[in-house]
Structure formats: C-alpha cells, structure tokens
C-alpha cells in the first residue's frame, strides 16, 4: 500500500483555492481501494510512484554546443494602449529548444512575432527595447533579410497553392528577373525536405500540389519551407495545435533533431509538449516573463507562485 504525503499546507486563502488537487481514491479490481495523490495535470510526478500519469518521454539535452543567437533586451510591446509584452529579456540559443508557455493572451505569441519583426504589420503595435541577432540590432537590418535568417512556422499548416517543390523553393527565389531554375535549386530544396523529414514521403512527387498532402505533412512542408534559406533561428507558433497526436509526435522528434543546427523557439499552450521537448522554458503571464529557467526546474521546482499554479493546472 502506497504511503501518501499530504499536500503542502495552505499558507493563505489564495493558496486554498489554488492549491494542488486533493488526494483521490484509486479503486482497482480485486484489491483494496487506496488513497493516492491526484495527478498534477502537467504529467510531472513530483513524488516517485505516485499519480496516475503515463511515464514521461523527456528529451535528453542535446550534445551540440550552445551558441547564443538572439538576445531580447527589455522588450515591451503594446497594441495601442494595451501592453502585451512587458520588459522581457531572454537569450535564444542554438543547440536547445526554448519554449514560451502561458495562458492565452499572455503575450507569448506577440513576443515570438517580434523576433522576426512580424508584429510590425499590425498597425497599432509599438515596440521598445532591443533585440539582437548575432550581436546586431534587428531594427537596423533590412526586414526581408532578417526574416530569411529568423524563419517562422505558424499554427495552421499553410502551404502555398503551388507544387511541393515550389513551396520549398519559395524563399530561395529572389524577386524580379533572373529567377533560378529548378535544377539550380534542386539540391537546396532536397536538403530542406530531408532535414524536415519529409523527403521519403514526397521526394518522388515534388511536382504534386502541396495542398493535397495530409495535415501533418503540410506542417512539415512548412518547416522545410522555413528551413530552405538556412535560417539561424526557427520560430514555431503552436505548430502542433491543429494536428493529431501521431503527427505531433513526428514534429516533436523533428524539432529535437533541428535544435542541433538552428536555435528553436516554440510557443505552446500544451505544457506536456513543452515538458517533452524544451530545454529552457519561459513562463509568461499578463505580458510579464514570470519565470525563465531549465525545463526541469520550471516544471519540477518552480520558484514563483504563479508558475507553480499554472504548471500545476490550477489555471490557464
């Protein structure tokens, strides 16, 4: 019979409401009912042998050297009067996955979109603070050049209405005259498809329309498209939220492989996902970066009360 540790004593009234769920009775066929601690919601069992959670598939840290690619310094973003991101500072490193978590509307997507200056297309958005890419201020760069180096994949798979090949070659083709032909781009396109783990499925049918692919394949095609110009940073805005569990798993494995050669920042609603693939986690709440640290620390031993409540499933 398992021994049950009682939940930590509530310190004040707020804690009573937001405390971890109370113990539950576990009833098994042909055995005495036992009282066990309820699962913590994030699948992160704090006590060994306790809880009904499935065993965790936690990614091993990458052996690749960590290289700082981007640095966010005191960045605030407002939409008109409304402050969406408040004085956030963060490093973005190659060789690891940085996950931004937090409830809806906490500013994590806005922060992500500021890294390739995509917030600028929202007319009311104002940004302060500095973002550096390899030491250079991104505001001083040509925006099209920046976006080739800091690439992005969106929530909904959105291949363009053209062939698989043309989708991947899209970023490689310069505007105007002198568009390189198929043969000239073949090696780069093939390389991007291999890196996105899609070559085996579409290598023989590169001229087929991209919108005929399945949802998971479309999303990997979007990743290939983003990788084609060999970016240094890959931004992923909830890339799996429109996908089934199997496709999600394929993409998560892909992300773990990609972190070796490109800095990966992923925004996710899904805490289990952050736990599975992230090396560092930033928890945002109401525009603030509440806590930043190694994934094990943020999920296992959060320093801040709000983080503890969020990863414990008390809100969000």
């Amino acid at each position, binding site marked *: 019979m398992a021994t049950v540790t009682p939940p930590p004593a509530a310190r004040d009234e707020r804690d009573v409401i937001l405390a971890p769920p109370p113990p539950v009775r576990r009833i098994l066929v042909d055995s005495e009912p036992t009282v066990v601690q309820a699962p913590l919601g994030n699948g992160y069992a704090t006590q060994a042998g306790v809880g009904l959670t499935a065993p965790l598939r936690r990614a091993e840290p990458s052996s690749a050297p960590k290289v700082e690619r981007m640095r966010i310094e005191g960045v605030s973003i407002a939409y008109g009067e409304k402050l969406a991101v408040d004085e956030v500072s963060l490093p973005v490193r190659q060789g690891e996955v940085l996950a931004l978590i937090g409830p809806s509307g906490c500013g994590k997507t806005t922060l992500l979109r500021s890294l390739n200056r995509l917030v600028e297309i929202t007319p009311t958005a104002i940004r302060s603070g500095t973002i550096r890419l390899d030491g250079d201020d991104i505001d001083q760069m040509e925006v099209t050049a920046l976006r080739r180096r800091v690439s992005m994949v969106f*929530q909904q798979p959105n291949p363009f*209405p053209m062939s698989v090949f043309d989708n991947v070659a899209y970023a490689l083709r310069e505007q105007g005259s002198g568009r390189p032909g198929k043969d000239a781009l073949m090696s780069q396109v093939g390389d991007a498809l291999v890196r996105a783990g899609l070559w085996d499925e579409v290598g023989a049918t590169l001229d087929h329309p991209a919108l005929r692919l399945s949802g998971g394949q479309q999303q990997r095609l979007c990743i290939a*498209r983003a990788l084609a110009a060999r970016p240094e940073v890959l931004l992923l805005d909830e890339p799996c939220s429109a996908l089934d569990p199997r496709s999600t798993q394929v993409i998560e494995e892909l992300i773990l492989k990609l972190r070796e050669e490109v800095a990966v920042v992923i925004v996710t609603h899904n805490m289990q996902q952050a736990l599975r693939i992230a090396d560092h986690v930033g928890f945002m709440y109401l525009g603030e970066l509440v806590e930043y640290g190694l994934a094990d620390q943020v999920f296992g031993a959060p320093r801040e009360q709000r983080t503890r409540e969020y990863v414990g499933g008390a809100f969000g």
Partner: protein
Amino acid sequence: MTKPIDSVSSWPLRDRAAFYAAWAAGIALIAIAGAIVVYMAFRGAQYFDFGLLFESPSASLNQATSGGFKDPIVGTALLLIMSTAIAAPLGVVIAVWLTEYGRPAGLARAVESAVEVVAGTPSIVLAMFGLILFQEWFGFLTFDAEGAVLGRSFIAAASMMSLIALPLVVGATREALNSIPGHVREASYALGKTKAATIRRVLLPAARPGIGTGTALGMGRVAGDTAIVVVLLGSTLQILNGANGSVFGLFRGTGSTLTSYVYYNSPAGEGLAPEKAYFAAFVLLLVVILLNFVVTRIARGKEELWPR
C-alpha cells in the same frame, strides 16, 4: 407506428401553404428555364442551316439572298475578347488595391462606391455616355463615314462593355482574396518576401478560381447585351473595316453581334427574318450556357484551401 414529428402534414395550415408555395415557385422556375431551352432548341433545329454560320449577312428583302451570320458571330467573339482584355486586368488591379492596400480609407470607399455606381448603371445609359465620349473626344478611335464621326466602333463598344464586366470581376476577385486567411500572407512575409511578391506569387494564384469566375460571368453579360451594340457598334450587319483593312481598322470598324442580329431579324427589326433570328438566338443561348458551364467548372476549384 410512430410518425416523424416534423412531417409537413402536422404543420399549421399557414406554414403548409407557404411550404407548397415555395415548392411551386421552384418548379415554375424549372419549367420556365426548361421551356426557354426546349423552345429555342426546337426552333433552332427547325431552321438549322449549317451554312448560315459561315456566310456573311447582307441586307436584302429577299430572304434567300440575305446571307448568314458569320459576321455577327465574329463580332460577338471580338467584342468578348476586347472587353475582357480591358475589364479583367483592370478589375483584378482594383480588387487587389482595395483588399490588400485600401489606403487612404476615404479613397478606397470612393472607389467602392464608383464600382457600385458602374454596376448599377443600365447598359443603355452606358451606351449614351459612350456615344458622347467617342463622338466628342475619341473620334479617332471610331469609324468615320467620309469625314462624319459617328462615335461607333468595336473599340467604343468594347470599352463600354468592359464597364459591364468590370464590377463582376472586382467583386469575385475581392471575395477570393478575402477568403485567403491572414496567416497565409504572414507566412510569405515571414519568409522574407515583400507585399508585392506575396500578391504576385501567392495571393493571385490562390485567387485564380475567383478571378476566372468573375471574368466568365462578365463575359456572359457582355455576350448578352444589346443596347451598347446597337448604339455604339452600329447597325451594319457586316463588319466594316475602319481603315484599309488593317487590324486597327478592324477595331475602328463597325459591325454586329448575335444580339443585334437577332434584334434586326426579329419582328421588331428591319430584317424581318424570324427563322434566322431564332437560329441565331439559339446559337447565342448556346454561347451563354457554355460560358455558365465554364463558370461552374472554375468555381468547383474554389473549395477552402486553408483552415482559418
């Protein structure tokens, strides 16, 4: 035995009456559409003469020698091509500007209203406007009969005809562009592409079915219009070259279309050859049905490409 709760016989009398009235209206419409096609096909078959399609018409009181309607067919085709060549690019450009730029907002609203005004103007009013335009200012683009500027030519008719097709192209293109989710545009910007490149490489290809639908609808309207043809193309049944047989002369020349030919030969016109009018009307009907068929074929490719 259980009766379905929602069976019509259980409805109140008022609802039942409305229900049957709706059925009757639908069936009446089918009957009318069927009657038009069957009757015109019957008359067309009755006066069917393959040779008429390849014979030029001539004005003659003797029906046996008044020729066929090769020129009206050529005229219809020419007018369709010319007015589409004006309306389609112009309409697409207007729609792209309205949907993707639309700034300053006041100007965009003014353009929208202008498109609506053009769409609401009766074609005979467009024809009279065109007559003034081409008599007073653009006479060099029209047929001149020994120095007298009549303001009539294929160019005059096609440019006014293009105004009929233009609002349809603008409307269908805007609808197609609006149905492309914002994240598709952002995906292109996020790959380091400019707005212009995004429009050219992503948005216009995605909107192509919509553009095609609008253009084909506009062509159907152009093929069926009579007022502009009678006023601006002239009443010559044969195509008259405006300047020594050159292509520009053809554009400056006058002629006829299937609609004006039907009108001319109908009991209301001067030709008084109803059998030819019926056959020509049947050919015109086929042309328009063919265009509608093309519309449905294009529209079939219009399924949602991306989730929102």
